[in-house]
């Protein structure tokens, strides 16, 4: 009860601080217009939502719909003219559907008029046109239990081959039966783990310059074999465990090596809700290498915002100004905001929580592709890989199934003839 009270009080204090910061004449006059934001829901995005909402006035309405269901709502919500949402907060993984349907507008004119100093590293440009403004970076990287590895006399892993060797020792010594974790749940999760591992093996998803899938080859087979080998050291329910559930497993002390999202590591390092000794001994490191390609088995992600094309110029301008205010460097001075993410905003001070993502950026990892048809391949992978992971069919058969499922979908969507 006492904890709750303190949490509530500090929340109120933070809110009061935030509102005074904005009231103190922090440049937030967005003129007339309607600002309506759709986006995912996690602390960093909530900071943006609150920042934009502080720009509301008698002449400007600001609303935000921040929800885990954002991917399902954003396309229908921006298709009509005028669009329900004027701003979409997206990542490099979710911008493609908006680009495909031509739902977002280039921002060059607005940047020239209102934010000429926007650093280049925040601009997402396609064919010379700025389509989105990035504000934070994210990546999957390795998290390990320093106490468990030390107990067995093991080093922190640098590659998936190390992970397998460590897991073998931990099992043989009877320290932990299933020490490896991963969000291998059927669907998006296992598709993403395939993408990571395939990139780590130096694979290219498509034949150059076309939408033809290119995964049924030696690299694809090596990818699947490594995933299968890792799964032997995972909780047998691995196909039913997504990011939330595997995080719960981690906090319960059942996992010793886990590839996890940088944006979720603050929760893993939080003693609240963890078995004693787990959070204190949770250590972050960079992504794992696999094979000899020299590219780490992970992808880099950015989160950013875009402006709808189906809105009036006045609404677009108001939206742009409100979003620029929400990522103003001054937000980093608010209590706790600096720690919420790996911000791409000027003045950001890296913390120990961002260690894993920084190491990933330094390791030469590649960004998740923004190709218009990558989502279809991801969906096909998520649906077909479980057959192989359960030992029902060969790697070659599964990869052939993935390509066939992808081809059917890509033909329907008009990417393949």
């Amino acid at each position, binding site marked *: 009860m006492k904890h709750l009270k303190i949490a509530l009080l500090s929340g109120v204090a933070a809110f009061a601080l935030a509102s005074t910061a904005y009231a103190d004449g922090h440049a937030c006059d967005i003129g007339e217009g309607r600002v309506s934001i759709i986006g995912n829901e996690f602390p960093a995005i909530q900071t943006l939502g609150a920042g934009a909402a502080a720009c509301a006035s008698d002449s400007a309405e600001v609303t935000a719909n921040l929800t885990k269901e954002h*991917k*399902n709502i954003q*396309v229908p919500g921006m298709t009509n003219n005028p669009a329900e949402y004027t701003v979409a907060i997206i990542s490099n*993984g979710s911008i*493609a*559907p908006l*680009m*495909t349907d*031509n739902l977002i507008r280039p921002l060059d004119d607005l940047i020239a008029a209102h934010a000429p100093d926007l650093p280049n*590293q925040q*601009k*997402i*440009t*396609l*064919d*010379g046109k700025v389509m989105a403004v*990035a504000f934070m*970076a994210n990546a999957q990287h390795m998290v390990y239990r320093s106490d468990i590895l030390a107990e067995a006399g093991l080093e922190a892993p640098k590659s998936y081959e190390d992970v397998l060797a460590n897991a073998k020792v931990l099992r043989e010594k009877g320290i932990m039966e299933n020490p490896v974790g991963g969000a291998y*749940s*059927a*669907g998006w999760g296992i598709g993403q783990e395939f993408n990571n591992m395939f990139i780590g093996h130096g694979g290219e998803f498509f034949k150059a310059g076309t*939408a033809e899938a290119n995964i049924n080859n030696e690299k694809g087979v090596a990818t699947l074999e490594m995933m299968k080998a890792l799964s032997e050291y995972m*909780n*047998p*329910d691995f*196909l*039913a*465990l*997504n990011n939330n*559930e595997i995080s719960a497993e981690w906090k319960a002390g059942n996992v010793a090596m886990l590839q996890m999202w940088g944006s979720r590591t603050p929760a893993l390092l939080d003693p609240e809700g963890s078995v004693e000794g787990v959070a204190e001994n949770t250590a972050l490191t960079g992504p794992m290498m696999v094979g000899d390609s020299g590219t780490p088995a992970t992808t*880099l992600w*950015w989160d950013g915002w875009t402006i709808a094309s189906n809105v009036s110029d006045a609404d677009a301008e108001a939206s742009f100004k409100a979003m620029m205010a929400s990522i103003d460097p001054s937000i980093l001075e608010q209590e706790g905001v600096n720690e919420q993410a790996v911000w*791409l905003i000027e003045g950001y001070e890296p913390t120990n929580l961002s260690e894993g993502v920084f190491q990933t*950026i330094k390791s030469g990892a590649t*960004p998740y*592709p*923004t*190709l*218009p*048809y990558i*989502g*279809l391949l*991801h*969906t096909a992978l998520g*649906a077909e890989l*479980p*057959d192989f992971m*359960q030992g029902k*069919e060969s790697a070659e*058969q599964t990869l052939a*199934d993935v390509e066939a*499922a992808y*081809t*059917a*979908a890509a*033909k*329907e*969507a*008009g990417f393949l*003839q």
Partner: protein
Amino acid sequence: MKHKTFFWFFLPTGLAMLLFIFLPIVSVISQSLHVPVDAVLVTVEECGPFGCKPSTTIDQEATQLLRDANPLGQWAGLEIYFDRSHLAVAEVGELWRNSESWGAFFNRLGNLPFYRAMAFTLTYTFVATPLLIIFGLMIALAVNTLSSWIKGLVIFFSLLPFIVTPLVGSLILFWMIDARGVVGSFIQWVFNDPTLSLKASTPLTWITLIVYGIWHSAPFAFVIFYAGLQTLPQDTLESAVIDGASRWQRIRYVVIPHLTPLVTFVALIQLMDNFRVFEPIVGFNAEAHATSLSWIIYNDLSGEQRLLTSAASTSVLTILCVAILLSPVLVRTWRDFNGKT
């Protein structure tokens, strides 16, 4: 009823059905016959926080010209119905030619998404429906014999599984059947096998989903049958007792014939409901082991890229399957109707 009276009586319902049932179905059928126009792809340079590289994107102006020329999309006819994600005509034909035995044919048929979904959907429908009717009847008969002061309480608790939202109910059970959950640990103890996991094996997942389905829907059957039991003809029952009928004989020859129309009703509703099984698959994260037609529609609509034509085709196929499934019952009702007039 005079035809004119009937017309005015039926008009509001008819209009509502036209608006909310007929027109949406026409729209779904039309969607299932059209696909988006071919995308014109161009290679451009893409830059971001992590550097620049060449990337492929859609040439919006060129694609927009095509879209304007075909506002409904490109005519595809039945192409999508027959592609690999649906009826997979070409793939099934090839399997047929290359399989040596029936077993091998069916085994490899399960590799195609539509037939894999059908296998689970039909098993679920035809196992869960009769069992939930039997359980519902047993609960109704048992509750009916209770003394009245405890009846209300028992009815309330019997209805709880039906009151709980399916998604929430399956999520709660998802954690209970976990290898470290209450039910999961208990099953491991019963079978004396510490590695037993309900979520890791396909047959056990199917059994879990079917048991969940019965648990959830048996109260529906119970309530209907319990209401039916209140109208049992007491005279017939008493004369059966005088004739020396045992309790089982009374149930078999008096109660069950009396409840037959209700059994038909429950079977009809539950066949439809169970054929559309969806929430437990999502709640139990069971898509690796079990999928259904409804789940395929959901998957097409919730992916990174929506596949409207694919979802529409699966919807039309679902409607056709439900029609086939219900046809015996509907034909019987029609015969009864004709027999009476």
